[in-house]
């Protein structure tokens, strides 16, 4: 930080803040930091680190039925927020301090027009008359670069994309030019290209208005791109705090070093020789959805005719933004949704030629692992029953099932003694391991992972990636790996296909595509990855290797 930055006024000052459950358990303990005007402080941490609780405590938006601040102070331009009355707080919110949220899809009132919702901020804070408010909202929409502000003004939230909604939320947060902006993982739910735009927009507006930004994130790429200073949190405590470059290159705490090392590099792993036979061959697979009914019947081609070939022991990445058709492709291959067209050959045999009983039997060859390990298991079943269910359906002998359950849970790095537990007793990473064990139970030749590591913290993500590589080597299972995260694809995939609007735009080896993309869209995607030229693992080890 320069001397000039040091002289800027402190906007937010948090001292010894402790937030506890009513039971007395501390969720956040003795946190202190400050944010100056025009500066961005990133709070980084994994899930459960208390970073979101800290941000909600500043806004005084904690769920008072569960959580309350029990010690410390939060000062916004000198005003102690913990001592302010609820009326004073209401006057400060949006006017002096604002917040943007993680999930733009649900942050807006679904039954009220967008313009009215943004105008409400001015209405609450008694700014101008109706016509004046309208003009200011439209002007703000222009500032956040919303296309066609008039149309957006009259639209309902469900008529806008995620990125557009986040722009609306930002417009809402900044329309009164607050001194402090709190951004709680504002780009986590967005595509990389949208993320890059939103991050650019926030820093542009920050510069213009001199706003102090408190930015909550788990993504070191984002941190690298936007932070002036970094505060690392773990289990409700501050691990360390410092200038962005200092923390990223020479962290003092082991925890920070481990976290940074876990960020996958965008430099692809060297290509392997693939000698296995083709396991899965897809020809001309397409999916068309029919929407609405007469007289407004519309068609939507989620997937245009697509081919792919997957070999034994190969990991094929399917990358693309939301709406690119990658999940539709996975679901059609797994026959979770019927494809409109196309042929699937498993080990040379076409599935369509099979009788319906044989079709059902063929399901064991293609198994799928879903994105969210918190919602993809039946919470009323024990892990043993979750892993065993497929085997029971396919008539395995009870003794065999028991033996395989023990084997599988060890194969994914957990103990057989855990088989009697329920999903809620596991962490997110452990749950995803169980999902993988369940998928492997039927000895599939193809494993489909649909964003299987996207919901996991980097440290856990790293372990699951290693597990998948290990399973590939030991079992020779072919993996179709759907992801939006190019860093993960670089570390895991042999080959990659890039999808956009239901079409494959580019296919080839991961090394080739990620270092030498031919298609413009692929280049665009790679450019949008935050801190793309920053190889965290190499930089942090002290010997700053030239990765550019």
């Amino acid at each position, binding site marked *: 930080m320069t001397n000039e930055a040091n002289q800027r006024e402190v906007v937010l000052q948090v001292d010894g803040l402790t937030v506890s459950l009513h039971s007395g358990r501390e969720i956040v303990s003795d946190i202190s930091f400050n944010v100056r005007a025009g500066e961005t402080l990133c709070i980084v941490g994994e899930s459960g680190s208390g970073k979101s609780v800290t941000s909600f405590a500043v806004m005084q938006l904690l769920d008072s039925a569960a959580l309350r601040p029990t010690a410390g102070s939060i000062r916004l331009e000198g005003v102690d927020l913990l001592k302010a009355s609820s009326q004073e707080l209401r006057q400060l919110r949006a006017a002096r301090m604002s917040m943007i949220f993680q999930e733009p899809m*649900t*942050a807006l*009132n*679904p*039954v009220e027009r967008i313009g009215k919702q943004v105008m*409400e901020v001015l209405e609450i*804070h008694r700014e101008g008359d109706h016509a004046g408010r309208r003009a200011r909202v439209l002007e703000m929409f222009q500032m956040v670069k919303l296309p066609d502000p008039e149309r957006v003004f009259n639209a309902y939230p*469900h008529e806008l994309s995620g990125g557009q909604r986040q722009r609306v939320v930002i417009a809402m947060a900044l329309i009164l030019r607050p001194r402090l902006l709190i951004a709680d993982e504002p780009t986590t739910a967005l595509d990389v290209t949208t993320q890059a735009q939103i991050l650019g927009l926030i820093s542009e507006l920050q510069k213009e208005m001199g706003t102090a930004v408190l930015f909550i994130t788990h993504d070191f790429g984002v941190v690298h791109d936007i932070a002036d200073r970094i505060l690392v949190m773990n289990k409700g405590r501050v691990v360390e705090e410092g200038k962005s470059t200092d923390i990223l290159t020479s962290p003092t705490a082991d925890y920070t070093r481990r976290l940074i090392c876990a960020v996958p590099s965008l430099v692809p792993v060297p290509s392997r020789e693939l000698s296995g036979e083709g396991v899965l061959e897809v020809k001309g697979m397409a999916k068309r959805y029919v929407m609405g*009914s007469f007289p*407004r019947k519309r068609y939507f081609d989620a997937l245009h005719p697509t081919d792919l070939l997957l070999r034994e022991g190969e990991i094929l990445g399917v990358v693309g933004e939301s709406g690119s058709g990658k999940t539709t492709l996975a679901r059609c291959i797994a026959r979770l949704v019927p494809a409109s067209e196309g042929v699937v050959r498993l080990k040379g045999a076409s599935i369509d030629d099979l009788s319906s009983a044989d079709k059902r039997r063929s399901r064991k060859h293609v198994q799928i692992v879903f994105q969210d390990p918190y919602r993809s298991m039946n919470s009323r079943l024990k892990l043993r029953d979750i892993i065993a269910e497929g085997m029971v359906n396919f008539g395995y002998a009870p003794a065999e099932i028991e033996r395989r359950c023990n084997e599988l849970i060890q194969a994914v790095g957990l103990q057989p003694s855990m088989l009697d537990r329920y999903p809620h007793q596991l962490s997110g990473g452990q749950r995803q391991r169980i999902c993988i064990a369940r998928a492997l139970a039927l000895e599939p030749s193809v494993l489909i992972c649909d964003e299987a590591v996207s919901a996991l913290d980097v440290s856990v993500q790293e372990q699951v990636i290693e597990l998948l590589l290990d399973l590939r080597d030991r079992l020779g299972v072919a993996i179709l790996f759907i992801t939006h995260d190019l860093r993960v694809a670089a570390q895991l995939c042999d080959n990659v296909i890039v999808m956009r609007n239901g079409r494959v735009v580019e296919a080839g080896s991961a090394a080739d595509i990620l270092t030498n993309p031919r298609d413009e869209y692929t280049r665009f995607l790679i450019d949008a990855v935050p801190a793309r030229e920053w190889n965290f693992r190499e930089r942090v080890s002290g010997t700053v290797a030239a990765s550019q």
Partner: protein
Amino acid sequence: MIFYILRRIVATIPVMGVVALLVFSLLYLAPGDPAVIIAGESASTEQLEKMRKDMGLDQPLPVQFAKWIGKVATGDLGTSLHSGKKVSEMIGARVGPTLSLATVTILLSLILAIPMGILAAWARGRWLDRSLMSIAVLGFSTPVFVVGYVLIFLFSVKAGWFPVQGFTPISENPLRFLRTVTLPAFTLSLAYVALVSRITRSSLLEMLGEDFIRTARAKGASERRVLLRHALRNAAVPILTVAGSAAAFLIGGVVVTESVFNLPGMGRLVVESVLARDYPLIQGLILLLSLVYIGINLLTDILYSVFDPRIRY
């Protein structure tokens, strides 16, 4: 929007067809020969023969159905076996009190229940919430006839504010109409007030946990604004669903209330016609009630799309 409404209306046509078919079959599903049922056990063979001919019972069923539909469409529901009067006239004479009672009851339920639900949600967990919800449980668990007689005793017999029984049409004297309909409507509404207020409270509380409520608070919105502007309209769909079903069930409750307050309504006509096995009258009543149900459902569907712009099937 207009397309949506038209489509919903068109969609009710097959439902009405099925209802008409079921109502028509009533006569044939009942055990025994329709002619015997209509003419009575004591009729002679010639009388039965003549009856079959007169009523077209000797013709094939599809032809009979088509003729019956044709008549129903022109408002001819046949003649009551019991009184010999036209079914349409008998129903016409009784429909006023029932419709008035049902409408006033629904309005009264909503006017009482929605504010109760909002208050309870606002005061969640506090004494006001608990007492409102206790009242709701009480209203739900007390039988209509008990409440009816207690209210008559207190407000009509003792206080003399309302007539003990009888009905005055609104066209005749609006004030007297209100006096005659208030007690029965209030009695009838208690269960629905309980139901709708509980649903209002729980859907509001569910909405209060949503992300956009947090956004509203971050804007500096007051608790009152959060509840009334943001939570309530989003809670409208579940409230409407329950209110719609309640309105349909209401017709069943009308029977008892009409008896207690001695109102000359359709509920009592239903009981009378069933007891007398007056088939044409039963058919006419079922047909009318089914149309009312279908209408209520249609209205609920259309109101959904008014409250929630995402709903356009």
